[in-house]
């Protein structure tokens, strides 16, 4: 293993010239040992995550005879005729991610700032309410949501309506991210300073507090998008088709077991690339700020 080549070099270093310069040598060797420890931990966890993923990809590329290679499991995803076709499922899911994020931020950010500045007494209740969805299993949630969605579907049967449920599902993650950001700024003092300079509450909120929590807003956004991209249970049980449900159906429509894995790998890859783009865009956006 590559990671283990390095410690051997270090051992050789220590035995050689390092022995001549004792004083600094001791601290340096400690630092090296710490470094080694870091690499070992990193390698172990890396393997823990990577091996199953790589195995999955390898299996999806398995041909008809063991050990052979084939792209058929992957081509079957793309050639799936529907309904609905894969592309529309991707579109729906991306739109859902967008709508959920926007609704979430519009709902939670002003509320949290308001509570922080004007209604401290409510913060405990707010925290409890926001974290509540975490403790409710998806199945239970669906049982509760089903009658409501029955009602909703009378007016609109689009899978986009899932955003109601997704806002609730993403609430705990977004709340945590935003709370961390909000606590990092001295919102009380900043708002008092702004008010004494003549700012109204709305100005305080959007021109003083929000610009100082971009990082937290971006984090909340990333978590929300990640959740929507990976959501299967609620969509499936409420009989909506999003990306995950679509991939599941593709894999069921064929006898090729590899498709199930190529589909999983595809969603992972899709989510990974999207999140990468988002966080890169976020960093670009913040450049030029302190």
């Amino acid at each position, binding site marked *: 293993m590559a990671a283990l080549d390095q410690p051997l070099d270090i051992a050789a270093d220590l035995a050689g010239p390092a022995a001549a310069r004792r004083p600094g040598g001791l601290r340096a060797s400690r630092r090296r040992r710490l470094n080694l420890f870091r690499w070992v931990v990193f390698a172990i966890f890396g393997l823990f995550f990577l091996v199953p993923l790589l195995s999955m990809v390898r299996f999806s590329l398995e041909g008809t005879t063991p050990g052979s290679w084939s792209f058929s499991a992957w081509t079957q995803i793309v050639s799936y005729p529907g309904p609905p076709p894969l592309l529309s499922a991707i579109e729906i899911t991306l739109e859902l991610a967008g709508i959920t994020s926007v609704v979430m931020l519009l709902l939670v950010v002003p509320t949290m700032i308001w509570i922080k500045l004007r209604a401290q007494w409510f913060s405990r209740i707010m925290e409890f309410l926001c974290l509540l969805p975490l403790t409710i299993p998806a199945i239970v949630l669906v049982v509760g949501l089903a009658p409501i969605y029955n009602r909703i579907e009378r007016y609109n049967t689009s899978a986009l309506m899932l955003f109601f449920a997704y806002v609730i599902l993403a609430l705990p993650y977004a709340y945590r991210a935003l709370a961390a950001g909000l606590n990092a*700024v*001295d919102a009380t*003092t*900043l708002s*008092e*300073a*702004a*008010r*004494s*300079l*003549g*700012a*109204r509450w709305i*100005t305080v909120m959007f021109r*003083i507090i929000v*610009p*100082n929590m971009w990082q937290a807003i971006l984090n909340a956004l990333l978590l929300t998008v990640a959740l929507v991209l990976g959501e299967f249970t609620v969509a499936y049980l409420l009989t909506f088709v999003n990306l995950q449900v679509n991939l599941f159906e593709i894999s069921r429509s064929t006898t090729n077991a590899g498709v199930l894995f190529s589909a999983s790998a595809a969603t992972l890859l899709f989510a990974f690339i999207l999140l990468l783009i988002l966080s890169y865009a976020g960093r670009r956006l913040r450049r030029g*700020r*302190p």
Partner: protein
Amino acid sequence: MSSPMTSTASGVTRTAVEVRMEGLSRRYGSVVALDNLDLTVQPGELIALLGPSGCGKTTTLRLLAGLEDADRGRIDVAGRDITRLPASKRDMGMVFQAYSLFPHMTVKENVAFGLRLRKISPAKRDQRALEMLDLVELVAQAGRYPHQISGGQQQRVALARALAIEPQVLLLDEPLSALDAKVRAQLRDQIRRIQLEVGITTLFVTHDQEEALAIADRVGVMQAGRLEQLASPTEVYSRPATPFVAEFVGLSNRLAGTVIGSVVTVRGHDLPLVDTSIPAGAVTAIVRPEAVTMASDDSGEAGPMTGTVIASTFLGATSRVTVDLGDTTVMAQLPTSEAATLSAGSRVTLTIRPDPVLVSADSAVASEE
């Protein structure tokens, strides 16, 4: 509201206004933070509110700024009742104890923020922001972000920002508390210089008596939501109105004594009373270290004012000498030349200069009035 520009260093003159607070009260739950406070600040005057934490000094400032609402009472600025006005319409510049610059704006943008809210043209507010930065000697830092400048500089920018909107009143809420001693003294003097130059009515809250005495036209000593004394720094120090003020401002010795007529007898010394209406009986007299003098005593005789030097602290021109009298210790402040002859362990006899003294009926000074 904009006053005419002139070519003075501050770039601005204004008519100073009077601030009048009447019967202001504020309680938090069962805690009385402010108890029927009456305070009038003369136009252009700097009043320092001094007191221990929880005495109501910061509450006074926050009520004045409109950051909190009074339960009762009334605030007039320039003869106009502003008691119910929201903070954003009060036209008061405020500097906070905590660093309060907006982290996402440069120094100049911070100073110009209040002007931007007032819809002043970019060119004008740029010019005004630079004038204000010139006043606090920070023009060179105009393009920096708050995290790139020191704490002292941040507070100076905060002062410039507060003054940029040409407020009627300047409120300073322990602006120096977060700074180290040297910067604190410098900035204190700079604040005073700017305040005099601009001629703005100012309220300065602090728990540091040295700061209050050094900067203020008048010092208001507060305790338990009440104003104990409002007077010039010299008067507060040399003629404290209450035992609390005497104890809080400057150092003092608390010595047991007996009131007989218009004098109090402390360890064989008769001292005149500030307040001659005190009934006869046992009291605690408050004696300033400057009022205590001493002489070497080699006689070996015991007496109520004879004791042993246990410590001598060099303070520069003067030294503080602590003497053990057996049942109590007394601090004296002496010229260093005199104190040098009295090493720890030497026997001395004390004398108390017969300045008028304050007394309190029991050990709980606070309850006396």
